[in-house]
């Protein structure tokens, strides 16, 4: 069994490109070129230079001493929160903007939920001097005002998605419709390992720098390239895909995917897609998604705006179905507690998404000798309002 993508664009039975014919020329152009472009020495050079000097990579692999003492195991935090713009998202947008330029596209569109990917896209568009249009659900615009302001400062146009439930899924629909309407000059920067092939694979490859660094950083600190566990939160799944990438085929390294249980998996207000989802098609990909019996896509819920996507990337659907990764669902309450604990023990305020990953230590016991790498995918600045309200800190 392989956990990577096959030549037809599937992870096991998941993936593919279920797209209207109107999108075919764009997606096909990308499919035919992405590996070739990424392999060009010139591309590699520019990508790596920007990751180093602009994003600030490598991000530290930090041994969290007090957290480790608390849970009697060796916990390393992969500090994606220290990247420029505050999360792992920028690794992908840097890669895709360079891809877009090489494909001769000068208009960039993106979708965003909480605004992190929108900010990361607006940032690289400013960097490259390209036009940037970000679709964002009307409801998300209202509740994520600082990120909307950031995008505008960076020169992006933020377009409210007014259809459907007016959140991330609808912003994605609107971005896809824009791409249908602008089939020649536009590149769509998808923010996660979702969408039609080749997006899941391309985004995973741009995020793969995370696990590549984990290997050599662990070698320096523990004299092994292999952690026992890699833990990451999963919404669409891009930070997890990056943290797992170079360990996918090495089953000595156990993978843990943490989903948002919201108010509880069975509460009706949850985003635990692997458990609650059924195989279907969302945004051009065959994967697990939350839907009615009749095949209508439903709205997920999580306190974390970055995890409430009704689908999950096809790589993760395959990791779930094949039991390669263990999937754990963490409630809002447990995530918030774990986030606060990291603040107090390590002086790091995590994004609420990442707090979900940290919460597994309350649920699962590790051996003292285990090396557990947790992807700290983003910083908590954007979530201060939610933390303040939740813990009544004002």
């Amino acid at each position, binding site marked *: 069994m392989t956990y990577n993508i096959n030549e037809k664009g599937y992870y096991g039975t998941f993936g593919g490109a*279920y*797209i*209207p*014919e*109107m999108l075919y020329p764009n997606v096909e152009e990308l499919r035919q070129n992405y590996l070739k472009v990424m392999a060009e020495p010139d591309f590699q050079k520019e990508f790596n230079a920007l990751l180093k000097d602009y994003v600030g990579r490598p991000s530290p692999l930090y041994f969290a001493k007090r957290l480790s003492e608390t849970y009697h195991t060796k916990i390393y935090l992969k500090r994606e929160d220290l990247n420029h713009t505050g999360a792992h998202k920028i690794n992908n947008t840097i890669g895709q903007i360079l891809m877009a330029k090489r494909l001769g596209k000068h208009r960039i569109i993106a979708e965003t939920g909480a605004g992190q990917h929108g900010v990361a896209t607006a940032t690289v568009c400013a960097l490259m001097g390209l036009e940037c249009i970000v679709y964002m659900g009307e409801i998300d615009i209202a509740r994520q005002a600082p990120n909307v302001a950031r995008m505008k400062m960076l020169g992006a146009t933020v377009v409210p998605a007014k259809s459907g439930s007016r959140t991330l899924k609808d912003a994605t629909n609107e971005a896809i419709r824009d791409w249908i309407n602008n*089939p*020649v000059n536009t590149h769509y920067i998808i923010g996660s390992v979702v969408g039609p092939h080749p997006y899941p694979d391309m985004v995973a490859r741009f995020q793969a720098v995370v696990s590549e660094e984990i290997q050599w950083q662990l070698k320096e600190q523990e004299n092994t390239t292999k952690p026992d566990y890699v833990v990451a939160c999963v919404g669409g799944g891009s930070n997890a895909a990056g943290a797992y990438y170079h360990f996918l085929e090495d089953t000595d390294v156990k993978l843990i995917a943490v989903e948002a249980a919201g108010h509880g998996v069975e509460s009706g207000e949850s985003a635990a897609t692997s458990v609650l989802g059924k195989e279907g098609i969302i945004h*051009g990909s065959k994967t697990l998604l939350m*839907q009615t019996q*009749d095949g209508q896509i439903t709205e997920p819920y999580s306190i974390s705006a970055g995890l409430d996507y009704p689908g999950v990337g096809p790589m993760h659907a395959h990791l779930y179905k094949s039991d390669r990764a263990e999937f754990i669902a963490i409630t809002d309450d447990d995530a918030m507690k774990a986030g606060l604990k990291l603040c107090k023990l390590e002086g790091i305020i995590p994004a609420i998404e990442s707090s979900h990953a940290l919460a597994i230590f309350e649920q699962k016991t590790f051996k003292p000798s285990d090396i557990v790498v947790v992807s700290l995918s983003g910083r908590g600045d954007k979530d201060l309002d939610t933390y303040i309200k939740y813990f009544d800190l004002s």
Partner: protein
Amino acid sequence: MNRINQKLKENKKLLSIYFTAGYPNLDDTVTIIKDLEKSGVDMIEIGLPFSDPLADGPTIQVSSAQALKNGMTTEALFKQLKDIRKSVKIPLIIMGYFNPILQFGVEAFCKTCADIGIDGLIIPDLPVDVYNDNYKAIFEKHGLINVFLITPQTSVERIHFIDSISKGFIYMVSSASVTGSSSGFGDEQTKYFKRIADMNLNNPQIIGFGISDNETFTTATKHAKGAIIGSAFIKHLTNESDKSISNFVKSIR
């Protein structure tokens, strides 16, 4: 012979109308079909509503959302259409996104369609290659014609491939757009219509997207076998004080 193929042999330009099943009211489906036939429409596309219609503009998004709110489901639609062939003779096509069909079961969906007397399907997000590899045999077993789209950006090579898989007509998307974005046809579209007509494909072409009135219908059918109207008809059902279906059809040709 499939009703679609029969209809395509008629020596006239065809008018096909799309509407969303279960809109404006859940039980309007059959009435609308009957009225359309009575008004002289040649073919009907019955829209199976979906929560996330990627290829559709605001009009069909709104009608789909309303239809779902009204309680429309795949099963409910089949129930409504159960006896449709007792009265309606013209070709009926179901147009819907792939996920609801997948959840119903592709085989069960096709069988039910055949039992009812549906003649064809249009599934915009089921790509021609996936259809060819996985579902063609099922569709053909049940005598259903699957209709594929081409756009101004579709390569010549791919048009020939799509032509080779098609068994009825090719749905020609008039311009690079989602449904319902109509501002008339310019030189670019006319050139594209002519370019495709000159390819002498095996399957006739019916043009859709951006057809809303007599003028666009006439321009489109100058170079194609027929044309499809969707959003403009739904707007008519929604907005006009005169909701008469026959008046709408008369205004087109």
